[in-house]
């Protein structure tokens, strides 16, 4: 029984936490939030230099090859810092897609650039409202050219290429690599609840597209790919939830009302205790996911859905109730509570609704408990 990260990994976590606390303070996040810049380029470049953008990429392609536990740890810290970087889009969605399904040529062409920060990529799945679903994919590829519309796509403007889910000529949904600088690509900005992570609408009009080959083919394999990302995203959500708890706890100790710290009132104490409980349950489920990802375990679908649901619930509660704990101050633009409310909302929906993942949990249980 060793259900914890190794000392090496803990060292990485501490390093990442210290680095991001300094380099991705809310002041920096607010530059993007306020539209002064589209993402934190300097931070991104530093992350590249630290080897973080290729943390789980084989060394052959310039990666650090430290494995998925390391990737999860970095995601947690990016989440804690609420950083304005395309970490999910580029690192644990697009880069992962290439690592898992790219041809040797594709990997050689793109992975070194992604790892070094010379290129950024994103993942284009959604076509408007709703859950991931084969039936909802209207983007089509015919003769190596892709057409259709994807929205919302996080980080779609700064990305050099996108991994796009589209229907192939033979009727199976597949992943395609699409150069976003090609002609026929239109990128329109979208307003969302989290301007610190810009989202876009991408329109493709007969744009060249290369098919990526996952292990198997079709929708089930795309879902498997999303499940893997959901585990890493659970860590990003967990980091955010923990930041909310830390902030609310600190505030409750320092803010006085009725002659004593508000943290001495049970209404606040018990709220924060519930937040802690939610976060710890989410942490345990996320660890399970990290284990499944590392071992490519048969339980991965259940672990991924559990990690995802637990983290979404924890972040949602922590973000809202941290703001509530801050009272009037929490309602002001200048206090950071809303950054986490925004980010938690974006991440909750990013890979499908909570009900989508809950349904997958029960489906797993049904199979496991089959009479």
């Amino acid at each position, binding site marked *: 029984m060793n259900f914890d990260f190794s000392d090496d990994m803990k060292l990485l976590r501490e390093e990442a936490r210290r680095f991001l606390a300094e380099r991705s303070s809310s002041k920096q996040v607010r530059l993007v939030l306020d539209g002064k810049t589209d993402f934190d380029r300097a931070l991104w470049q530093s992350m590249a230099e630290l080897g973080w953008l290729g943390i789980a990429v084989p060394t052959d392609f310039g990666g650090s090859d430290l494995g998925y536990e390391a990737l999860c740890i970095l995601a947690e810290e990016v989440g804690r810092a609420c950083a304005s970087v395309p970490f999910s889009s580029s690192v644990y969605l697009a880069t992962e897609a290439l690592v898992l399904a790219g041809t040797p040529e594709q990997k050689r062409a793109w992975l070194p650039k992604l790892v070094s920060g010379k290129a950024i990529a994103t993942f284009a799945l959604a076509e408007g409202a709703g859950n991931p679903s084969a039936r909802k994919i209207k983007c089509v590829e015919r003769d190596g050219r892709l057409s259709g519309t994807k929205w919302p796509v996080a980080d779609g403007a700064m990305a050099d290429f996108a991994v796009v889910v589209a229907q192939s000529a033979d009727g199976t949904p597949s992943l395609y690599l699409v150069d976003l600088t090609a002609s026929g690509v239109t990128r329109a900005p979208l307003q969302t609840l989290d301007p610190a992570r810009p989202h876009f609408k991408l329109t493709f009009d007969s744009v060249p597209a290369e098919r990526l080959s996952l292990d198997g083919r079709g929708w089930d394999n795309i879902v498997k790919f999303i499940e893997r990302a959901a585990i890493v995203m659970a860590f990003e959500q967990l980091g955010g939830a923990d930041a909310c708890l830390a902030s609310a706890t600190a505030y409750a100790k320092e803010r006085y009302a009725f*002659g*004593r710290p508000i943290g001495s009132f049970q209404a606040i104490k018990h709220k924060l205790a519930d937040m802690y409980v939610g976060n710890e349950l989410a942490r345990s489920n996320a660890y399970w996911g990290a284990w499944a990802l590392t071992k490519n375990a048969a339980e991965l679908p259940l672990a991924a859905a559990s990690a995802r649901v637990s983290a979404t619930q924890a972040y949602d509660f922590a973000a809202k109730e941290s703001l*509530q704990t801050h009272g009037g101050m*929490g309602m002001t633009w200048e206090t950071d509570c809303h950054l986490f409310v925004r980010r938690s909302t974006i991440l909750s929906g990013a890979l499908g609704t909570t*009900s989508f993942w809950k349904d997958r949990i029960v489906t797993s249980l049904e199979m496991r408990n089959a009479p």
Partner: protein
Amino acid sequence: MDFDDTPEEAIFRREVRAFLNTHASPKSPSSRGLRRRFIRDAADLAAAKAWQGKKAAAGFAAITWPKDLGGRGGTAIEQVIYNQEEADFDVQRGAFEIGLGMCVPTLMKYGKPQQLKRYVAPALRGEEIWCQLFSEPSAGSDLAGLRTRAVRDGDDWVINGQKIWTSGAHFCDFGIIVTRTDPNAQKHAGLTFFFLDMKSKGVEVRPIKQISGAANFNEVFFADVRIPDEQRLGAVGDGWKVSLTTLMNERLAVGDNTGPAVEDLVDLARGLDLDDAPALRNGAVREKLADWFVQSQGVKLTKFRTMTALSRGQTPGPEASITKLVSAKQGQDIAAFAVDLLGMAGAVTDTELSPMHAWFQQAVLQAPGLRIAGGSDEILRNIIAERVLGLPADVRVDKDVPFNALPTGAR
């Protein structure tokens, strides 16, 4: 038991309806998601003032106030009927709720006859707007912990300090303010209440940007602002008692949830595809809809019970806290649920792309404020527990101590 008006109430309602039909336009269903409570610009303000003038001219501006002060001398239930009817029309409200609902009533109780003569009528006609200067950065739920100082100097008082969350301070003409005049007294005992001209020298108003991006509230700074003793309301040291008058009126004025409601969610779920079937057919969605319907219907009907009590001349108690406690949280939950239901596009706030002009998304950023302003969830539960159920108060460490000996925190 019935939901119908009495014959007299029915006559009054018809009168109101005739006035509204003549002078205002009804709301259209498509204005959903575009409803507004706040004054955004000079045009809004002008429209609000014009509408208030019409109401005053027709005798609907302050239905329960005595006739000699410009009111109608009507009943509380008539005021409720007027509000119900006006809610169906697209008129600019909100600029006067605090002034007429809280400030002027306090003036009416504690002001001198010549002051009433001077101030009540212009306020009623919408020509002068009033604001309430109560909360401070370190005195929110614990209002009596306020620190803004007033020091006597001849016939004047000199005010220094800072107020916060002052709605509309940037367009208000007058304000009521509670200040600390004796820091050596126990915290509730050292307060004194005034009204002042917001154009006084030394008053500086700064808007507060809220998380929604709007700025409906202000910080107000006082640097050696002089208020004539003439404008004191109540005795020196009686400021807390006077404030309670204002706050009791606040509870009576508790507004409705202005965010998306169950019916909006039904419409959303009807049109939305969830896992290849309409979301409205999903058992989990139905369960939530039913929960929220039962809750909101319970709130609505509880208000009917309050109105019945009003119509019988009873004073509604702190039971009214139920409305805000339940509605604010429900508004937040409905918004979050809708955004989640929309999945990957849920967070998109483009009014062209997102259902109902992105109303649910806007509510995500507005709902948190409703759980805090005008009594947080936590304070409301305390009020219900103590004033309705008669449970003992929290242990108070701030009762028998001079104000300036109380411990304070870093925030």
